[in-house]
């Protein structure tokens, strides 16, 4: 449920996540200083072709740019008011291209691969007290508990509707948060029972 991931495998899926992230970083650095609208539109056309090369399903994903429509319209309008239409086209094309390129990486890389590729970077933060294994546990736990908390909220709203006949109010937030604290106690206990962070020979390091 929670992934932007594109189910059907394409050639871009098979590329290592690290390479894709590096390519994205390099492309950003190259694209940002470009001002020539013709170059930017040509490059954008190239990105669209890239989507097309991944098949119909991926191509349909281009529609997600619609969620940026209001924003893009405002940017275009501002540039038209303050400058030339060439500047407006360049600004919109640059932004759309950056968003599409980033989405291209997200939709062809699993969360596990993304985590694995970014973990070495995060390991650099180790001197600041960040433990990579604890971090990956935290990520898994969060993904696990998002649906649990949503279900908890849903159940509460339902009980509220059943008893009042009205729409759920933010007054439900108080008991919901209090309940979350109780769940935290259970989760901490379950982690303890499974041996997380108990000092032991031969076990994994938790630090």
């Amino acid at each position, binding site marked *: 449920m929670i992934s*932007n991931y594109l189910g059907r495998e394409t050639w871009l899926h098979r590329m290592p996540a690290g390479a894709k992230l590096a390519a994205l970083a390099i492309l950003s650095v190259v694209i940002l200083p470009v001002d020539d609208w013709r170059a930017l539109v040509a490059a954008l056309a190239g990105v669209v072709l890239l989507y097309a090369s991944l098949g119909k399903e991926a191509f349909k994903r281009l529609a997600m740019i619609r969620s940026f429509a209001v924003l893009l319209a405002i940017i275009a309008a*501002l540039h038209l008011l303050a400058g030339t239409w060439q500047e407006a086209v360049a600004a919109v094309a640059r932004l759309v291209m950056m968003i599409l390129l980033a989405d291209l990486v997200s939709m062809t890389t699993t*969360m596990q691969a993304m985590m694995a590729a*970014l973990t070495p970077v995060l390991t650099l933060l180790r001197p600041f007290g960040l433990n990579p294994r604890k971090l990956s546990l*935290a*990520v898994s736990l969060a993904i696990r508990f998002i649906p649990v908390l949503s279900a908890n909220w849903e159940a509460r709203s339902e009980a509220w509707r059943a008893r009042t006949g009205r729409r759920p109010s933010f007054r439900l937030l108080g008991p919901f*948060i209090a309940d979350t604290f109780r769940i*935290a106690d259970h989760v*901490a206990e379950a*982690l303890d029972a499974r041996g997380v962070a108990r000092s032991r020979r031969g076990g994994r390091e938790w630090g």
Partner: protein
Amino acid sequence: MGLRDLALIVLFAAIIAALGWVPKVDLPFAAGVPITAQSMGVTLAGVMLGARRGALAAALFVLLLLFGAPLLAGGRGGLEVFAGPTAGFILGFIPAAFVSGYLFDRWSLRLGMFGAAFLASVVGGYVLLNLIGIPVLMAVNGTGLDEAAVTALSLLPGGLLKALATGVVSYVTRPDKVAGTEAGV
């Protein structure tokens, strides 16, 4: 950091994510910055857990987005969020949670639960978040100061409403009683 701290950080990151299911409101004058319940989740994390754990909860949420989980209101997520114009607001979640938590802890004795949580949320969740988010928005969009002022003003009613809600929730749940101290985190 104890296991309970870890559990609380994770669950509040999950709360911020779950608040993404509350429909977002797009305002015409806000330059595409939506009003969402998620920024309320951020200040709530700070107020409930304290500065450090709250900021870690917000950071975990941001990391989930980076890894590709579409957890933002409206189902967005992934690297493209950090390429877009609202990137500043998203990254600003982390200091916003920290500052809300820090101020709440300083003010809660003098102002009481409601007042401290309300003011801490206004400063952390509205003032600071916009101070980080709007300049990034301006830089990406290439817009000027008056546009920024209009954006900030149009986000004010929502910001106050969310701070009010955070205040009420704090008044009801008493973070000083349930959350434990941050000592040794």
